[in-house]
């Protein structure tokens, strides 16, 4: 009785509920007047309930139990019927009939749908942005208290981690790859902000950039350059480094206040080789000459071609005295070597040691002046130029 009262009140007042009474064979006994708005046609007495409420197909057993059990209830929420949404409930009426209530929830459901639509679209947008982020270079976000708060897929793949937790467990500190003296990401940011640095991680080289994201996060971007660098940085004729790479190494040495010795090497009278034996023979001599030097320097020494028959050698972690001995051995080796096509050839050497106030220009200029003096002194010799 209580339900009927609710239904009647609602039907009369707000048009919220409609009802259907059905018998044990699920044939319609009676319906409320407004039921037709949910259906294509008005049901009549003895019509099959499932024709009008296909939502109840498959739960006939549950409905049958309701005839004999007053406390049982079957509810189906948010069913779309024509342009309406209803909650459908089946409950005990008497031992021969069950009452099916259709509760009109269209207004609230449409509001919920708007919210759900907004939420789902946001998730889709977020997923798309995530895919864009993952397709970019390796990136990491660091909070103001030096915690890594986000890394993208590229970053995780490179460092072979699957989750942020793994990253923390690994205690990965990118800044130590650039400079072991750096203490945290703040220090790295100070160093890299508004410029870029080359950073070597294992066998790969990256360009590292940093920028603020709002005032809370710092963004670091790592762009891998290793695969291209070997071809791009080496001289195609001789296979030694190009001057651009040599310059970068010198700049890094100057920035880090490291010691270094620069040697400018020039083959004596090379023009005569080209003129006499041809340019092909000249090229062969250059290749033979650089191979000879490469065999007699350490793996961390850098040999680069400055242009023509002039070369640069960068020596680190050595004294001027030892460098002079090494270069003298080199000079002797070249002078005593028999080059194919041409036989004997000599070279002149100019040395300069990096001083405190040197920049790249002054250092190279001094080494070049030393070479000039060596040439002036009769070639096939070494000169060292002090500040």
């Amino acid at each position, binding site marked *: 009785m209580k339900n009927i009262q609710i239904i009647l009140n609602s039907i009369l007042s707000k048009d919220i509920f409609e009802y259907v009474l059905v018998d044990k064979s699920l044939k319609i006994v009676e319906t409320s007047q407004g039921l037709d708005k949910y259906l294509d046609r008005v049901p009549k007495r003895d019509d099959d309930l499932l024709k009008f409420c*296909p*939502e109840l197909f498959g739960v006939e057993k549950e409905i049958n139990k309701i005839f004999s059990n007053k406390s049982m209830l079957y509810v189906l929420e948010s*069913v*779309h019927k024509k342009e309406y*949404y209803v909650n459908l409930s089946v409950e005990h009426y008497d031992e021969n009939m069950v009452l099916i209530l259709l509760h009109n929830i269209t207004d609230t459901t449409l509001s919920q749908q708007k919210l759900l639509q907004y939420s789902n679209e946001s998730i889709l947008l977020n997923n798309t942005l995530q895919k864009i982020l993952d397709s970019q270079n390796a990136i990491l976000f660091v909070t103001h208290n030096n915690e890594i708060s986000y890394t993208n897929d590229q970053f995780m793949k490179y460092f072979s981690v699957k989750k942020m937790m793994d990253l923390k467990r690994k205690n990965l500190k990118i800044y130590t790859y650039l400079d072991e003296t750096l203490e945290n990401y703040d220090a790295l940011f100070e160093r890299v902000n508004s410029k870029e640095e080359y950073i070597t991680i294992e066998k790969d080289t990256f360009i590292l950039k940093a920028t603020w994201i709002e005032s809370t996060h710092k963004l670091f971007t790592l762009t891998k350059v290793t695969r291209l660098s070997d071809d791009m940085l080496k001289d195609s004729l001789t296979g030694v480094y190009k001057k651009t790479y040599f310059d970068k190494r010198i700049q890094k040495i100057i920035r880090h206040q490291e010691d270094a010795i620069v040697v400018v090497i020039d083959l004596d009278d090379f023009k005569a080789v080209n003129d006499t034996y041809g340019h092909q023979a000249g090229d062969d001599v250059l290749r033979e000459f650089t191979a000879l030097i490469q065999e007699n320097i350490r793996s961390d020494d850098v040999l680069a071609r400055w242009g023509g028959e002039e070369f640069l050698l960068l020596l680190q972690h050595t004294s001027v005295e030892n460098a002079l001995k090494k270069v003298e051995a080199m000079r002797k080796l070249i002078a005593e070597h028999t080059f194919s096509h041409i036989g004997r050839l000599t070279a002149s050497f100019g040395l300069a040691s990096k001083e405190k106030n040197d920049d790249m220009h002054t250092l190279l200029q001094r080494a070049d002046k030393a070479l000039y003096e060596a040439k002036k002194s009769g070639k096939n010799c070494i000169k060292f130029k002090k500040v």
Partner: protein
Amino acid sequence: MIRKKILLLGDFSVGKTSLVKRYVDGTFDDKYLTTIGVKISKKLLTLKGVEYELLIWDIEGSTPSKKISLGYYKGASGAIFVADVTRKETIEGIEAHKEVFLSENPDAKFVIAYNKSDKLSEILKEQMELTENSFLTSAKNDENVEALFIKLMENMLS
């Protein structure tokens, strides 16, 4: 006439409603409108001389924060699990949908729709590993939609 209840299950925005619209009405609309709750569509079909009324339950897609009401699963004979072939997470999500559905309906049959195949290149389509119960579908281009429903029906009747 024999009635059969089937469900379309999958994550949100994978194209469940579009598949139903294409199969039942033969139409397609590119605009995304989230389904809320459930909408039941009917389709009459005859298989081996027997008439069937297919009750197709297009159910609101699950989201990370909202799971599907189990009340919808009762009495279903089959299900189509739908994934958006361009969203890896929706393909991975199929297993979870399958697990819940089969725990409620252990004897029910199912097929899988890798939907939105119109967004894939021919090379990527060829690389998809399909079984006899999984289809690359496109509600937009009407690709394999009918075959999907028919295969499910055949499975349910076997």
